[in-house]
């Protein structure tokens, strides 16, 4: 995993340099120049289309600029940030977003690991299952949202129809009006769509694990459970972390699926931080405080990503 290598390189930089045979200076310089030239188009694009806008938004976040006239104006310092940090609504939203992230990514990971393991044991029909898994993943998010909203519908949804014909419920239930349930229903929709991605990554990782190790352990009398935790899991760790980084960052910014399924209801119980940002910036036209919120999201996601990256750094995590 590149992150880990890069990180090791960074930490051991002086040592690595000393250990390497010193190349001819000109070659070194030429290599650096080549590297610069090759990186240039990519960095230029990223710079122009993301960093400039981000800087612009960053400046906006210290103002109370309205959406109607988005030139930075009326500097208010840290007031936008402080106002949010003081609001219970903000902290509830952050907590709810974490709940969504942790639960959906958690379920996706456990299910994904189980299904990948199942696939890896090559039961009859495994290829069909793997092919099937690709379909939900390729269904566009907006379609996914519309589909699940339809499934959950209280008066003609498939969920009610199914549960009723199975005799689990005696009459149709309004699922999305229940404050404690709504978020979990959104999570199910998200799991359906995103879990296959984790299965793909973990299947790929399992394919790279040499079988002789596990066979040897089996000969030595290790139980299946031991083999799984002591051999397979450590080898899978980098892949799990890759999947976690990608999915956590995505889940923490969740917007589309909530916009389609619940629009934040009931009683704001499914409003996540991105949705709140959308409300502030676009519905309420408060670009300044919306910008501050979007920066808080960036900071949170960055912090989480850094935690994962640190986990990857740890020498004992690497085999």
């Amino acid at each position, binding site marked *: *995993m*590149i*992150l*880990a290598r890069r990180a090791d390189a960074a930490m051991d930089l002086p040592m690595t340099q000393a250990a390497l045979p010193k190349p001819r200076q000109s070659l070194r310089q030429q*290599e*650096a120049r*080549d*590297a*610069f030239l*090759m*990186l240039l188009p*990519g*960095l230029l*694009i*990223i710079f122009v*289309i*993301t960093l*400039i806008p*981000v800087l612009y*938004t960053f400046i906006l976040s210290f103002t109370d600029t309205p959406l109607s006239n988005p030139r930075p104006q009326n500097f208010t310092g840290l007031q936008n940030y402080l106002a949010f940090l003081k609001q219970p609504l903000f902290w509830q939203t952050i907590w709810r977003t974490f709940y969504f992230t942790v639960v959906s990514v958690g379920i996706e990971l456990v299910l994904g690991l189980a*299904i990948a393991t199942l696939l890896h*044991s090559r*039961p*009859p029909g495994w290829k069909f299952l793997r092919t099937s898994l*690709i379909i*939900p993943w390729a*269904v*566009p998010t*907006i*379609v996914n949202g*519309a*589909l699940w909203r*339809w*499934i959950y519908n209280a*008066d*003609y949804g*498939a969920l009610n*129809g*199914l549960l009723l*014909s199975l005799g689990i419920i005696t009459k149709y239930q309004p699922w999305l009006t229940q404050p404690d349930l709504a978020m979990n229903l959104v999570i199910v929709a998200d799991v*359906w769509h995103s879990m296959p991605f984790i299965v*793909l*990554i*973990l299947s*790929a*990782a399992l*394919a*790279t694990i040499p079988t002789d190790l596990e066979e040897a352990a089996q000969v030595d009398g290790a139980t299946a459970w031991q083999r799984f935790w002591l051999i397979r899991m450590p*080898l899978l760790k980098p892949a799990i972390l890759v999947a976690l980084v990608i999915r956590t*960052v995505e889940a923490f910014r969740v*917007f589309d699926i909530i916009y389609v399924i619940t629009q934040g209801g009931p009683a704001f119980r499914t409003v996540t931080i991105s949705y709140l*940002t959308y409300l502030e910036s676009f519905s309420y036209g408060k*670009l300044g405080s919306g*910008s501050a919120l979007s*920066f808080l*999201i*960036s900071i949170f996601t960055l912090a989480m990503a850094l935690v994962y*990256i640190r986990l990857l750094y740890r020498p004992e995590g*690497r*085999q």
Partner: protein
Amino acid sequence: MKTTRKIFGLSIKMFLMLVILIFIYAPLSWLFLSSISTRAELLATPPRWIPEHPTLQNYRDILVPGTAVSEVARTFKNTLLNSFIVASTTTVICLLVGSLAAYALARLRMRYRNHIFLGILSVRMIPEISLVIPLYIAAAFLGWRDRPIILIVTYLSFALPFAIWMLTTFFETVPIELEDAALIDGSSRLGTLFRVVLPVASPGLVSTALFTFLLAWDEFFFALLFTSTIQAKTVPVAIAEFTGRYAVDITAMMTGGILAALPPVILALIFQRYIVSGLSAGAVKG
């Protein structure tokens, strides 16, 4: 004794497979059944799982529209084409620019390499919503509003960092000896990249391409704000437009959903061999 255990294990596995398949296919079949039902049948309680009068009218309305068809249905094909143009152009640019950058990051020694790599990754974490206003102002200034190019450019903001990251992991797995041999033979840096590294890393290229394509195909928020006519409108926006001020054309929406899902699903199914082998080679390696 052993065989009984084996049979027991196998039947557990088969049962689990069945449960997973149901979880995958139940919503999909509901999507499909909704698209071939009339609204009156769709709303029946208890639900009619199999419509009594299945109709392909919704598909006909979109594929060979008559005159009495809504604007959204009639222009749906154009939006499919727009999505295709936008997603594939974005993918090609990402592969080209991304390969160059990824090769430099994976292979060449330079200062701040680590910082640059993490910087690119962190760009991926910026929420779209914090980019949209400045980008809109720029788009209007350049006269790019409601043209596919604005979507291609803005989609690079999330697709390019992702592509660079994936490609870097793939390039790292290409045996360095191959390149050294080419370089010693007098091949240039670019020549080596295109003649040696890319062919070896092709499963990685294919999976990166597919992931990038899906990201671009899926995007909704930029497309919603930047486009408004069939010149540039993409499929997710068209699907959202089956919702009027009050009325929602649910059966048409489900039909649109199926048609919108088909291209990425077909691509993913064709290239699935490469996805798994590509991922095994690169992204998941420790």
